[in-house]
């Protein structure tokens, strides 16, 4: 519905809180303003019912006993109209959406990994080789260091765990017995986890898949 600047006068008119001149001027206005007249009728119905049935409608109301002054916060917030609040809320939401959208690009996200069913956050280990399909059985697996005095645990899988070992280096040489189990055409995957000297898991790599294509 359209708005009219004179709408704020409706209560004063209906509650007889206007001077004679103000009243006449407002009456001339609503004779020519359908927006105001419609609202006058609605408000008048509301007031009429309240005046007539107020004792029933408000039977449970306990009048506020203590008068209090508006707090500084309330006074400040009163300066801002509901429309301005709405604009501010929408702007804040937009900023939040943009911030969330760009955040992953600004800072590398900490990885999440699971031990049993517990979610753990930590640094990631970058696997170097092999990370793509290869044409012969790999004899060495290499990854990036994730700190000093770290012990790495390497896992190699086909459909099931195939082999696992630990080392303090950032590469391992695959034993011939294990190499013998790996056949061309099969898909394998591997993963590295690092542990602190106290045995605490501190980083996990992605599980990288490769295929021996030969």
């Amino acid at each position, binding site marked *: 519905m359209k708005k009219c600047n004179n709408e704020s006068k409706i209560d004063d008119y209906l509650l007889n809180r206007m001077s004679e001149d103000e009243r006449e001027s407002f009456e001339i206005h609503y004779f*020519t303003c359908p927006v105001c007249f419609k609202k006058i009728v609605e408000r008048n119905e509301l007031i009429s019912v309240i005046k007539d049935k107020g004792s029933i409608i408000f039977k449970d109301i306990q009048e506020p006993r203590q008068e209090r002054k508006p707090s500084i916060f309330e006074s400040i917030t009163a300066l801002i109209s509901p429309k301005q609040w709405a604009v501010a809320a929408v702007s804040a939401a937009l900023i939040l959406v943009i911030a969330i959208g760009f955040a992953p690009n600004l800072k590398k996200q900490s990885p999440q990994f699971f031990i049993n069913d517990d979610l753990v956050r930590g640094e990631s280990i970058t696997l170097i080789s092999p990370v793509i399909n290869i044409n012969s059985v790999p004899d060495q697996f290499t990854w990036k260091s994730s700190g000093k005095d770290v012990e790495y645990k390497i896992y190699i899988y086909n459909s099931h765990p195939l082999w696992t070992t630990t080392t303090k280096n950032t590469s391992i040489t695959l034993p011939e017995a294990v190499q013998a189990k790996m056949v061309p055409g099969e898909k394998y995957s591997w993963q590295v986890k690092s542990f602190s000297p106290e045995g605490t898991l501190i980083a996990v790599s992605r599980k990288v898949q490769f295929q021996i294509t030969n």
Partner: protein
Amino acid sequence: MIGSITDIELDEIITKYRPIITFKVKKSIGGQTPDWEDIANEIITNVIDKVKSGEFRGESSIGTYIFTITKRRIIDHIRGKSKILRHAPEVDPFPQPHVYFENKEKAETLANAIESLKPKYKEILYLYYYKDLSREEVAQKLGIPPNRVSERVNYAQKLLKKILKP
């Protein structure tokens, strides 16, 4: 312009202004006074006659013109009743709802809707309309700034409209 107002347009004018005239008459002389209906009808007949006879020359808006006719007729009525006219007619003390509600059920439904409002909104309607406190007095009682009073009242009415929406 007078000559250009057709019967159809005149019908539209009357349809539009009948409720406004009726409202003004009821507010000025009191809806419980049985005369209001006759007076409103007289004003409407008067408007039709004046427009048809060309007395309305379009110098002011039709709304302002009808207001002037309405106001004069109300003054005449009060003068006839009291024989003394010192000022424009005194406004009537607030009338009973049946004056404005043709349908009693509607008033009942609205009352129930008010009762179902949250305490925050009921409280403001109670202080502002039922207790007839000024905006400033309500603001002081509730500890809110005065401009928040009107905002809250308006919002309460919005909620009522939502509740009563068929």
